[in-house]
């Protein structure tokens, strides 16, 4: 066992724990916080099913963003769709045999890597060249884009610049899953890629990346427009009802 193997194994366990635990806590915290008033942005669906569709359109198509700004939508969607495919493609490192639908997606996963990088690049360019967006950008906004872009580029480099021993990497990943550690190949790009991914997982629950779970808990999007037909009452608000 090389020191690098131990280091990355421990780092990834810690990162996965923080990500899962942090997200679970956030979701619990959002779920327990009441929404005392009906505030869906209207026109809003009048049924639960309609709300599910509304959220689905937001998650898959970025419907509201599409209405807001086409460039922003294009870059944002390209990045997220690319990322989704890339994540699916990476499942092959954690499954043996590789699930058939994952195998099916493999060829697209490579292009998705480029799409992801292109989207991120576009989003970053906006932060420099659109005065409004430059004004609101904080250092962490830039760092987050840098982090994601470096992850994408280091990943692509392993495929197109040098040849990484992916069989050994897969053995390492499966070893993590089954708590049967296998050596991590001594490859600088692999170290960079895994290190940055661990960093992303670590900051996720403490950063604006919370927009991912946040959308599902946003009352302006997830509430049913039925306020005249049902009395909506949060526990703390119910206690304020005057006693008859």
């Amino acid at each position: 066992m090389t020191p690098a193997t131990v280091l990355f194994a421990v780092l990834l366990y810690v990162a996965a724990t923080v990500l899962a635990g942090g997200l679970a806590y956030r979701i619990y915290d959002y779920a327990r916080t009441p929404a005392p008033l009906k505030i869906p942005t209207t026109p809003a669906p009048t049924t639960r099913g309609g709300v599910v569709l509304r959220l689905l359109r937001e998650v898959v198509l970025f419907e509201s963003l599409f209405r807001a700004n086409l460039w922003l939508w294009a870059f944002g969607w390209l990045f997220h769709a690319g990322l989704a495919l890339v994540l699916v493609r990476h499942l092959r490192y954690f499954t043996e045999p590789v699930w058939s639908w994952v195998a099916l997606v493999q060829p697209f996963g490579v292009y998705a890597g480029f799409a992801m990088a292109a989207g991120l690049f576009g989003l970053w360019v906006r932060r420099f060249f659109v005065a409004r967006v430059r004004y609101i950008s904080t250092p962490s906004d830039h760092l987050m884009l840098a982090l994601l872009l470096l992850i994408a580029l280091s990943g692509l480099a392993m495929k197109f610049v040098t040849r990484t021993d992916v069989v050994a990497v897969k053995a390492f990943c499966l070893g993590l899953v089954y708590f049967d550690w296998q050596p991590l190949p001594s490859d600088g790009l692999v170290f960079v890629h895994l290190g940055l991914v661990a960093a992303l997982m670590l900051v996720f629950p403490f950063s604006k990346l919370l927009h991912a779970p946040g959308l599902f808990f946003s009352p302006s999007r997830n509430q049913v427009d039925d306020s005249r037909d049902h009395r909506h009452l949060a526990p703390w608000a119910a206690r304020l009802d005057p006693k008859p």
Partner: protein
Amino acid sequence: MAADVKAPPLRAMPGVQPLLAGAMAQSKPYVASDKIQQAIGFPGELVDGWQDQAIGKMGELLGKYRSLKVHLDACVHCGACADKCHYFIGTQDPLNMPVARQDLMRSVYRRHFTLAGRLFPKLVGARDFTRDVLDQWYSYFNQCSECRRCSVFCPYGVDTAEITMAAKAIMDSIGLGQKYSNEIIGKVHRIGNNLGLPGPALANTLSGLEEDVKEETGADVRFPLDEKGAEVLLVTPSADFFAEPHVDSLIGYAKVFHQAGIRWTLSTHASEAGNFGLFIGSYEQLQKIALRIREAALDLGVRRIVVGECGHAWRVAYSFWNTLAGIGAGGSDPFARRLQSQLDSRYRQPMHICELTWDLIQRGALVLDRDANDHRIVTFHDSCNVARASRMGDRPGGQFEIPRNVIKAVTNHYVEMARGTTHDETFCCGGGGGLLTDELLDLRVKGALPRMEALQQVVDSHGVNFMATICAICKAQFSKVLPYYGFKMGMVGGIHQLVSTAIRLGAKH
């Protein structure tokens, strides 16, 4: 017109504008006096140790409102909302970009409630709650009309209105209140309505209106007050009782009730549909003000509750009355059942006056002469709270269709303003959210810019000479700011003003 206030030029090509940092930093409303503050339970002046108290209040609100917590966390600074606010468009002040306005609170939230902000404040844009920050809050949270246009375009539905309301609640809790809104809330409790019109004056006004309508039409149209046993309680903004052009719509409602043969009444106890508790983000005030309507309905024994032309009032009525006061349907608790068993469940409760009129038109219960409005070429300004925070009818989007249906039933010439400025993308009039006060006139004139641009287009292309709207604040705001853009103040009016012109009394037998 105030000489030092000037309208900005209409933009040739909307979209790209330079930022004018600090352009509106000096814009702020008068601070509420200790008397005004204490009358509604807030500290009279900025308290000692206000910083800790404000952070404490923020923590309380974060535990009570999921919207606040999620909306402060979720923003990614993408800029989708940045150019959507009418105040940003009109002032070019970057702190009027919705995301920048939110960040005034988000920066304090991050510093005091998040790990990243405690450890690396500079990195994530976290700030301590200093006096300078508080001054920025007072200035720029009083430059948001809580119209929710930004939230339409946000990929997570982040609603600046929720954040502005929380900011006002926090400022009220430490003794920094806004005079205009808080004085009005005091009045509604003390006298019964926002304009401070006492019962006898109201009765007098209404009998004057009966005489006017009799003279004009020959019909005995009644304006009943506090009549027990009436079927309908009409709750309308108090501006309808005497402000121009509001009163013309009140006459319209009365004519509709008259011709349909519906017994209705106003109430002195609830002589106000407006609810400024919304604007200051106070659940307690929202509820206290809403309960007046419940009390009046129980007292008068009415079977239906109808709301007049008022934007934020309709939001409160449609979206919140069931929650706050049990006015609606589907309540299973004794508090809600007590009123709901009295109300007629065959009708929507509460009902918007446009829903009522449209139902009557569809049933053929009204005799309307479209030609009577032939001197008018009409367009419609969707009011923000109706458009983005409520509904009419049974289908989503009914809040757009029903008012337009009524207009088209009473006029021959209707023109729609440009896409992107109507329906749920409508622009606020520039005076909502408790900003309809003279010391903010400069802001109000600038905030009206995008609506004025859209209006100018249809004036030029179709000769539009009447902009209908169903909001007391829109009517008052436009009456004031239209002249700054070279329009006549009489161009704005209510939908029921048009109905009033078209309706033929006595023609139905």
